[in-house]
């Protein structure tokens, strides 16, 4: 404890020391005076013999000090005072550094929240969805119940924790609670009971499914997701044990799962109720997924999947020819969900790193320049005996102080910027399953990055100063015409680095701009503007057959069409954007298609006659559907150009026949799977691209696949869930409520859901491109600005230093042009070398970016040219401004400067 006592008694200790020394001197003087000296002489002699009183006192005090801590406080105090004094320097430094840190913190938060902590539990990162690979490609919804039990029924796996099966469906939710609400369409997932334990999730209220509940004829129980519980039931815990209705069938709520447990788009989970005794292998409508063991990559689980598929083929291949050559292929769910966003995040992290480098280089430049400006002070302090190491420590403290302030400011800014930036990312990418917040890790990383920058760039001027001799420093303070070689070289190198990095970032932004323009102006084959869309799903309980379904839609379309502001209205099984297009097996009578079973698969869309008018897809040949193509008339179909080119490459498709195959084989025909039907092709339409958020930019290069359109009036039974599309005169959003009222007027229990404009759906598909564009654009701007500041600082510094010289030159008859050239010579090499270095570096970036680009080669010449011009122009401007100042130097004044 003595150190503590000392800390508080230091003032007294110091007082004692001073008094003691005073007494000592007095005693000495008195003795000398007694010896016959005059008082004045004695005082001199006493001091001479004593030595330097101040030093002695300082040394005496130093004994008691915590030298390190005291110095630190002193440096900090001095640093704060300096920062307050040079406000503009502080603002520039803190804001550029802070900006970089804010950007880093935001992107890091998104990366951590959206990718590293993808789901509520760590297991969510290890979900692999199983697909079946066949000649027709990969299909996911292809598992039958017996097949699932074959795969999931083993005791031990080498590379899996286990398997679960699910099937998604949308249901109409209603309830008999005290406060009745509108029926609502919600997404339900039928899941095997083990899904919760495999994901490692426990309910926040109630319980999850018991194994006994997950069997055919088991009790109707439901688990709500946190979001639905909050939204519809106000987060009331009394909901446990209550009854809700799904498609008018009562279910008992038994549990609530945590907010982030919202896999597969579910809002409600109900038991899958598979029959383990079933041997119906033709009903294939399950998704099967596995949780892989820790540290098993998707590649590493393939051998075991191969074994499982072989087992299946060996055992049942004889009775089921479709098992021939069966391959199970894993799909990494996390990667699939994040898609291009992952690459976008990598690129953006790269951009952040670049920006950080540029700002650091700039800060370093600023600090060196400031150190030189302080040469006089430093020289004086060195002369007075300051040790270079001590001075260096002070510089270091100052720059760390600066970067610590910037670190905190940047993080605070980042926290506030997170929300608006997240709004730029389409909900699908980071939507329900993730939770993004400013993470403490992001804070730690950004602040320590700031401190690291502080240390690195505090050292630069510190080394610079201590390498120079005392006399150089002192001299510098007196004369202004000394060209300082060392400092100039450092700053030129830094500005060069900035130029090169700015080039790379601007190049990235330029490529994104080109991509975005290409994508936006891409011919989609339909026009998404002024189209409102929504979904209507008719329950089987009230609309039992095709006739009722057809009547409902006929009435609805007639009603909506007569609404003011509506140009055209149609129904379609799939909207052109934001949804996946269903595929349908078909064959061509009289021909054997070159596939294993003679059938092929094409996109399949059920539409009403006005569909093409609403989305504006033009007819190429033949005719559109009409009201006459109804149940009684002969079956017809329309195909797209791609279909015609693929299957009738040499002739006209019009008049040819296709047969739509029942997906469950020829045996049974249910409402959802009509019997095989031969249809005649009556029209060929332009290709139109089905776009969705799950597509990578890369996929835009793929050619548009073949597609078949069939008339709704001939396939009403397949159209229980339809989308309504209406082309409007004005803003389509304004009509949403009117249409909803129209539906409720027809059927008061019928919910309308997923109301969106087609434009919004299409824009969503461009999400990552837009995000990259916006952020890279902002970064490019900042990088350019920062690099210009760096260049400006160099040119302006050299002008200031050479004012005297310029004055002499002008007095001796130098023209303004000569002076301009003189100054430009300082900046031009930096610009040119920076450009070349940036050009080389941007080739590397372009390769990395290529998967995000569309319609632009990574080394796009035009972009390179434009970027070079922009950088040269801004660089020249940065040099020109101080050069102007040099020209306007009045020789008289310049010479008088000294």
């Amino acid at each position, binding site marked *: 404890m003595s150190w503590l006592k000392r800390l508080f008694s230091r003032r007294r200790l110091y007082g004692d020391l001073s008094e003691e020394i005073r*007494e*000592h001197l007095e005693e000495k003087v008195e003795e000398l005076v007694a010896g016959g000296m005059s008082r004045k002489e004695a005082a001199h002699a006493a001091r001479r013999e004593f030595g330097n009183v101040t030093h002695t006192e300082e*040394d*005496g005090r130093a004994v008691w000090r915590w030298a390190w801590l005291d110095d630190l406080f002193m440096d900090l105090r001095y640093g704060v005072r300096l920062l307050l004094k040079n406000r503009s320097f502080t603002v520039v430094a803190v804001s550029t550094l802070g900006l970089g840190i804010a950007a880093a913190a935001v992107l890091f938060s998104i990366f951590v929240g959206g990718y590293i902590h993808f789901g509520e539990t760590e297991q969510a990162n290890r979900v692999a969805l199983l697909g079946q690979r066949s000649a027709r490609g990969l299909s996911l919804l292809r598992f039958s119940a017996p097949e699932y039990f074959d795969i999931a029924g083993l005791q031990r796996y080498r590379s899996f924790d286990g398997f679960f099966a699910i099937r998604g469906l949308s249901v109409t939710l209603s309830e008999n609670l005290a406060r009745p609400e509108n029926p609502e369409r919600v997404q339900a997932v039928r899941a095997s009971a083990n899904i919760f334990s495999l994901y490692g999730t426990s309910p926040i209220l109630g319980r999850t499914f018991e194994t006994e509940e997950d069997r055919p004829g088991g009790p109707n129980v439901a688990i709500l997701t946190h979001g639905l519980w909050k939204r519809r039931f106000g987060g009331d815990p009394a909901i446990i044990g209550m009854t809700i209705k799904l498609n008018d069938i009562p279910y008992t709520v038994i549990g609530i799962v945590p907010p982030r447990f919202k896999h597969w788009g579910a809002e409600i989970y109900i038991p899958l109720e598979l029959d383990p005794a079933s041997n119906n292998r033709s009903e294939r409508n399950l998704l099967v997924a596995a949780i892989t063991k820790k540290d098993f990559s998707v590649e590493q689980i393939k051998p075991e999947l191969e074994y499982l598929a072989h087992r299946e083929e060996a055992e049942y291949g004889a009775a089921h020819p479709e098992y021939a050559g069966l391959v199970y292929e894993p799909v990494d769910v996390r990667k699939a969900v994040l898609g291009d966003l992952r690459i976008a995040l990598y690129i953006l992290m790269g951009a952040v790193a670049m920006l950080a480098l540029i700002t650091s280089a700039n800060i370093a430049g600023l600090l060196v320049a400031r150190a030189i400006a302080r040469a006089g002070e430093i020289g004086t302090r060195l002369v007075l005996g300051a040790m270079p190491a001590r001075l260096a420590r002070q510089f270091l403290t100052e720059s760390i102080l600066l970067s610590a302030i910037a670190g905190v400011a940047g993080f605070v800014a980042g926290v506030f910027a997170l929300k608006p930036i997240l709004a730029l990312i389409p909900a699908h990418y980071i939507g329900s399953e993730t939770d993004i917040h400013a993470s403490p890790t992001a804070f730690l990383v950004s602040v320590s990055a700031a401190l690291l920058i502080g240390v690195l760039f505090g050292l630069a001027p510190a080394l610079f100063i201590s390498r120079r001799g005392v006399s150089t420093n002192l001299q510098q303070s007196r004369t202004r015409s000394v060209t300082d070689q060392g400092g100039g070289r450092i700053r030129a190198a830094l500005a060069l680095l900035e130029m090169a990095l700015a080039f790379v970032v601007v190049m990235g932004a330029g490529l994104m701009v080109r991509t975005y323009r290409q994508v936006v102006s891409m011919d989609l084959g339909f026009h998404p503007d002024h189209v409102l869309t929504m979904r209507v799903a008719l329950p089987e309980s009230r609309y039992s057959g095709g006739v009722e379904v057809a009547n409902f839609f006929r009435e609805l379309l007639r009603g909506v069409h007569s609404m003011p502001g509506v140009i055209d209205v149609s129904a379609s099984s799939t909207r052109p954007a934001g949804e996946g297009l269903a595929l349908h097996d078909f064959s061509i009578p009289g021909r054997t298609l070159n596939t294993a079973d003679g059938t092929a698969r094409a996109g399949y869309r059920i539409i009403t006659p006005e569909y093409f008018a609403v989305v504006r897809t033009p007819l190429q040949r033949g005719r559109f559907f009409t009201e006459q193509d109804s149940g009684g008339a002969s079956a017809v179909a329309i195909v797209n150009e791609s279909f015609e080119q693929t299957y009738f490459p040499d002739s006209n498709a019009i008049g040819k026949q296709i047969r739509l195959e029942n997906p469950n084989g020829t045996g049974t025909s249910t409402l959802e799977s009509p019997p095989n039907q031969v249809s005649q092709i009556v029209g060929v339409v332009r290709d139109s691209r089905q776009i969705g958020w799950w597509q990578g930019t890369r996929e835009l290069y793929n050619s548009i696949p073949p597609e078949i359109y069939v008339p709704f009036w001939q396939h009403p039974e397949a159209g229980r869930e339809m989308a309504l599309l209406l082309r409007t005169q004005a803003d389509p959003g304004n009509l949403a409520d009117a249409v909803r009222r129209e539906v409720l007027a027809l059927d008061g229990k019928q919910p309308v859901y997923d109301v969106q404009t087609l434009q919004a759906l299409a824009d969503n598909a461009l999400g990552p491109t837009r995000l990259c564009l916006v952020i890279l654009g902002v970064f490019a701007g900042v990088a350019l600005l920062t690099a210009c500041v760096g260049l400006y600082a160099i040119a302006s510094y050299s002008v200031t230093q050479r004012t005297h010289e310029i004055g002499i030159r002008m007095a001796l008859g130098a023209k303004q042009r000569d002076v301009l050239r003189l100054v430009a010579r300082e900046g031009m090499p930096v610009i040119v070398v920076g450009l070349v270095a940036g050009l080389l570096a941007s080739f590397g970036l372009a390769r990395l970016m290529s998967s995000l680009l569309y319609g632009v080669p990574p080394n796009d010449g035009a972009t390179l040219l434009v970027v070079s011009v922009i950088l040269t122009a801004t660089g020249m401007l940065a040099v020109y401004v101080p050069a102007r100042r040099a020209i306007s130097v009045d020789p008289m004044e310049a010479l008088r400067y000294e």
Partner: protein
Amino acid sequence: MKNREQRDLFPGALEMMILRTLKRQPLHGYALAQHIKRTSNDLLQIEEGSLYPALQRLLKEELVKAEWSISSTNRRVRSYKLTAKGAKHLEHEVSRFEKMLEGITRVLAPGEL
């Protein structure tokens, strides 16, 4: 900077001399300085001031303790006294010094070369 007084002495010499002097009797700073100067026959060029940082160090190590009092010449003085710990330290240092001196003497002794 820290050890200005040691330009002419080896490290710890001044402290040792102070402790040795204080072993005989408690003294205040001025008297101490005069005594060391006188005893060394002015051979050691010590700035009087350099005594004080040394004294502070000894205080901190608790080898001496200080007390304000009135001297025989009726001045307010701060006199230093050796502590038990200081006495032990001095003994140790002196024996160490003697060994060192012996070593130096042998090396410097004539005729060995």
